[in-house]
């Protein structure tokens, strides 16, 4: 049987691309990496994702899979291995999917507004971002009390869906002009952050929060300059 060809097209600060990195790295799948310049997208990217022309795209044996959570689901199906991301139980699976999707609906949405919005809308984005993290703190306490991850002792689909935002916390706080509450207020969240950051597979591909913060500030400056 010939070796699988696995390639990830990504842009280094993308939390969506990071989800794919995490899924592959947690499972120990080898893959090639291609950095895309968003201002000069490769022909390969445009052909692999003609609908959105966006990263991340996973190309597996020549077939492209797009949309980060769809990709993570796919990875979990094709390489179940020792680290299964989706629980077997349909209800627990639905809960894991809900929280991964929460990353898109609430965290990313608020974070995006922190970078691009002005005035009152910008202030609200900060409130919404904090609210979202508070919900995650509460969820961790309900779903996996006393455990470090949504998946209990190991990261699951929900953890992979949400963890990529951690390296963006510094950047969001900088452009938002606020400081996130500490472990006294959000004990579960902070334990989760520490647990995620100590996983070797996670350390492998996570960009430095300082670099991400610098990137966030560059975009924010551009947005403010254009206003």
């Amino acid at each position: 049987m010939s070796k699988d060809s696995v390639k990830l097209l990504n842009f280094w600060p993308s939390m969506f691309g990071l989800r794919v990195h995490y899924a592959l790295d947690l499972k120990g799948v080898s893959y090639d990496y291609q950095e895309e310049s968003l201002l000069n997208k490769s022909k390969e990217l445009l052909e692999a994702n003609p609908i959105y022309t966006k990263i991340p795209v996973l190309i597996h044996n020549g077939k492209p899979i797009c949309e980060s959570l769809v990709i993570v689901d796919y990875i979990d199906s094709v390489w179940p291995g020792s680290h299964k991301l989706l629980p077997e139980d349909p209800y627990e699976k639905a809960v894991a999917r809900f929280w991964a999707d929460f990353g898109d609906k609430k965290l990313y949405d608020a974070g995006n507004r922190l970078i691009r919005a002005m005035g009152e809308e910008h202030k609200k984005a900060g409130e919404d971002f904090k609210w979202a993290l508070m919900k995650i703190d509460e969820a961790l306490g309900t779903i996996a009390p006393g455990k470090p991850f949504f998946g209990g002792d190991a990261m699951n689909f929900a953890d992979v869906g949400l963890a990529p935002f951690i390296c963006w916390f510094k950047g969001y706080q900088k452009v938002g002009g606020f400081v996130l509450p500490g472990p006294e207020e959000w004990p579960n969240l902070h334990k989760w952050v520490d647990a995620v950051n100590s996983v070797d597979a996670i350390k492998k591909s996570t960009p430095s929060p300082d670099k991400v913060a610098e990137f966030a500030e560059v975009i924010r400056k551009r947005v403010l300059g254009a206003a």
Partner: protein
Amino acid sequence: RMGEEGLKLLTFWSSPFACRVRLALDLKGLHYDLQEEDLFNAKSALLLESNPVHKKIPVLIHNGKAICESMNIVEYVDEVWPDRGTGFLLPRDDAFARATARFWADFVDKKFLSLTAASFKAAISSGEEKERANDEMIQDMVALERFLESQGGVFFSGSNTSMGFVDIAASFLPWWLPTYTEIGRLRVPGPDTCPLLHRWIAAVKDSPEAKAAFPDQQELLDFTKVRFEEVKKRFAQ
């Protein structure tokens, strides 16, 4: 009726999200209680307890547990009752086919059920901005047409007789397209540009399960007309 005890769907008659879950439940031949929520006055205690994060319908309650997010509910139903009624909604044995189905279900959500969608922007804007957004929306429908073509059947599932995951995701379109044209004053591609999509629309409207799950067209139009004025005010620049 093993396992269906206490199956309950919290719904709202004109929600495309809730109606498509009803469709999935009916296609599976499941028996459930329908609880209509009074979204504009007072959400029920059950809704607020079951979906404390988003406080939105639809919510499926099964064995006392709440499942939220419409396509999440459809997947859950497909997993718990894989062989019931119409059979599998998501392709069972092919991970790539499953990923393709999820991608296109998500496309429908992004392009027709999201506040950042061109369809929404086109509806609430005017002049050149409206026309540009409308053109983009038409391109989105052409993309759906191309995907439908590639699937080789009447339905997005590829079958000529049974609906699948993407069909359910898009199942509200036959009832909502008239709201786009009559209330949003949008152009939609006709059978000349999108023949397969129009054939699909007719097939969905013909389905007894879909007819039962979705609201009366005129009632929906009347309701949407009223809501649209409020929405426009809220989102107009």
